[in-house]
């Protein structure tokens, strides 16, 4: 009994994905992964690394080049289309010409595997559709036409359709593409809550590494060099795996902030920040980095401190006083981040000129 509950919902061993045939194109191989009910995994990787192909292979839409995927204890590629539709619900990035279908109609498509030949919705189906719509927060828009929704609302309606399909596995292919920032956060929230509250396993592929690191229980990483790794987001971030997958000319993954930042070539100037940890300091640090400078705490070889900034909390916001390094008492004041940015930029430029 315990074994059955512990068995992963989705697992793959030695999986190779890509297109077979005469023009074989192997996108990745040696993929081992496991996903249990209640887990939320995020699949990340550069464009063309095979994220969509992996997802399609996991749900049996595409044959693996080698290896097997097992879903609920069965080899997924050997399931019939009908059996698959009750085990895995998928949302793809396609654009839909939905005509006069309402949000309700679209979500009701999720009941398709369960309805009779005339597609009549029984009480049980109606209940599933209504609660799926409520789960993504679209109850007020249920009778609105799908084509009239914003991109974010559409994505949520499509996720609701997948929820209504009532499968143990939910697969979302780039659900946050085309969405604005708040809508992206919402999609991640919905995906995580779904895994937590209903015990479903949820996988989504995304380019939002930042959100993936914040929300996912595990990160699946495809690095564009045919390699796959998986683990807790923190492990992959600190082990340098994310950096190896994504780092490019002029930017790199910063494990400290979990975000990408540009790397300026040559020597860098540092700024000391004299302020307690807090909102003001955090944004001052961001400002320093935005200008291509480093915060002195993270001083590294070849960098030179050019100024010291102290922050005081004023009535109308933070006040900054800036003291140039090596100039004794010479200093200036700034009443906003914008002013501070101009002062620091001028200073850095002056230093650059004198050092040449």
């Amino acid at each position, binding site marked *: 009994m315990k074994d059955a509950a512990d068995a992963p919902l989705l697992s793959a061993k030695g999986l190779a994905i890509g297109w077979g045939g005469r023009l074989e194109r192997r996108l990745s191989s040696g993929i081992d992964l496991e996903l249990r009910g209640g887990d939320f995994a995020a699949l990340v990787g550069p464009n063309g690394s095979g994220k969509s192909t992996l997802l399609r292979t996991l749900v049996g839409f595409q044959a693996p080049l080698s290896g097997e995927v097992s879903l609920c204890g069965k080899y997924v590629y050997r399931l019939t*289309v009908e059996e698959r539709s009750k085990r895995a619900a998928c949302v793809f990035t396609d654009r839909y010409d939905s005509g006069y279908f309402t949000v309700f109609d679209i979500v009701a498509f999720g009941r398709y595997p369960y309805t009779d030949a005339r597609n009549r919705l029984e009480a049980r189906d109606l209940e599933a559709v209504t609660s799926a719509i409520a789960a993504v927060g679209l109850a007020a828009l249920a009778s609105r036409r799908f084509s009239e929704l914003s991109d974010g609302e559409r994505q949520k309606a499509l996720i609701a359709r997948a929820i209504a399909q009532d499968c143990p596995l939910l697969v979302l292919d780039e659900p946050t593409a085309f969405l604005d920032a708040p809508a992206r956060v919402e999609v991640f929230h919905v995906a995580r809550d779904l895994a937590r509250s209903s015990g479903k396993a949820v996988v989504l592929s995304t380019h939002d590494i930042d959100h993936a690191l914040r929300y996912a229980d595990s990160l699946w990483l495809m690095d564009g060099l045919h390699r796959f790794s998986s683990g807790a987001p923190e492990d992959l971030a600190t082990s340098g795996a994310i950096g190896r997958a994504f780092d490019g000319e002029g930017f790199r993954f910063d494990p400290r902030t979990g975000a990408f930042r540009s790397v300026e070539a040559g020597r860098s100037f540092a700024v000391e920040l004299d302020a307690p940890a807090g909102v003001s300091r955090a944004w001052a640090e961001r400002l320093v980095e935005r200008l291509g400078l480093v915060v002195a705490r993270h001083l590294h070889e070849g960098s030179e401190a050019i100024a010291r900034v102290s922050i005081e909390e004023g009535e109308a916001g933070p006040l900054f006083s800036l003291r140039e390094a090596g100039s004794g008492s010479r200093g200036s004041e700034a009443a906003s981040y914008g002013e501070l940015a101009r002062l620091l930029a001028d200073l850095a430029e002056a230093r650059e000129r004198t050092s040449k």
Partner: protein
Amino acid sequence: MKARGPAPGALLATLACAAALLFVADLALGSVRIPLVGVADALLGRATDSAWASIVLIFRLPKALTALSAGAALAVSGLILQTVFRNPLAGPDSLGIGAGASVGVAIVVLAAGSAGGSAFLSGLGLAGYALLSIAASAGAFLVLLVILLFARRVENGVTLLIVGLLVGYLAGSLVSLLVYFGSPQKVQVYLGWTYGSFSAVTARQLPVLFAAIGLGLAMTARTSKSLNALLMGDRFAESLGVRVAGARTRALLAAALLAGAATAFCGPIAFLGIAAPQAARRILRASDHAILIPGAALLGSVFALAADIASQLPGGGTVLPVNPLLALIGAPIILSIFLRGSRQEGSAR
């Protein structure tokens, strides 16, 4: 909860009433005007005027029934094609399916055995007419298969229409070859058929037409669930457990049978197959095939009956061909789809 404006059921009932009214009008109007009472008497078999009775029963009733069923068949065929190819301009004629059916008919009429003479078509027995519809349906389905083959490679809907056009030309050239080598009498018969008419079907042949169209409609009704899913795309449908290739083939078989049968009996009828499903979508404001299939069928009947009535309007025994009249209704509808389509593309994408 989902309704906007009148409920689909009420709109369908209105369409059914319109079809019924036009059906009665089609029986009453013509070179000889027969009062409604006379029509009713003739239908109920208690006619006092035997001339009226024979006009209604022998000429007008089969013609009206043919218009009713052929209109419905072409409209539903067009609806299926528009859904499967996800293209609002798909239809039996725009995809060259009518041309394919013409090849089937041309082969039977022009190349078939010894039974010659101008009486060939009307002289055909029931078996002959069944053969004609099978040949037309087979021709229609063959063209559909070719288009389906291309549809998997070209995503663009306009390209698909061009393929349909070319296939249509190809079928047309086959027909010209058959015509070139056919005997003059047979060619005469064939050319008469190409004008399109609802009046060539006799009461004895009607059961064959009804059987073919009834079968096609029953097949369509059974695919209505998967048609809804196919409308949203192949991947969407497959993720819902639809066996896409099978569902598509079944739907196209139904479309070919419907278009083939209607074409075999009435000749190539233009525009109706594109315009009626489009109009049904807009009038019913629906995308659900459970509503659209009956809606398109009723509207197809309405269009066909209206065109048939209009073709009798000149009076004095002059009858206009149906095709140009349908073009008068159909062309503006298709034009407006074009205009609306380009506007939508400009704003939504």
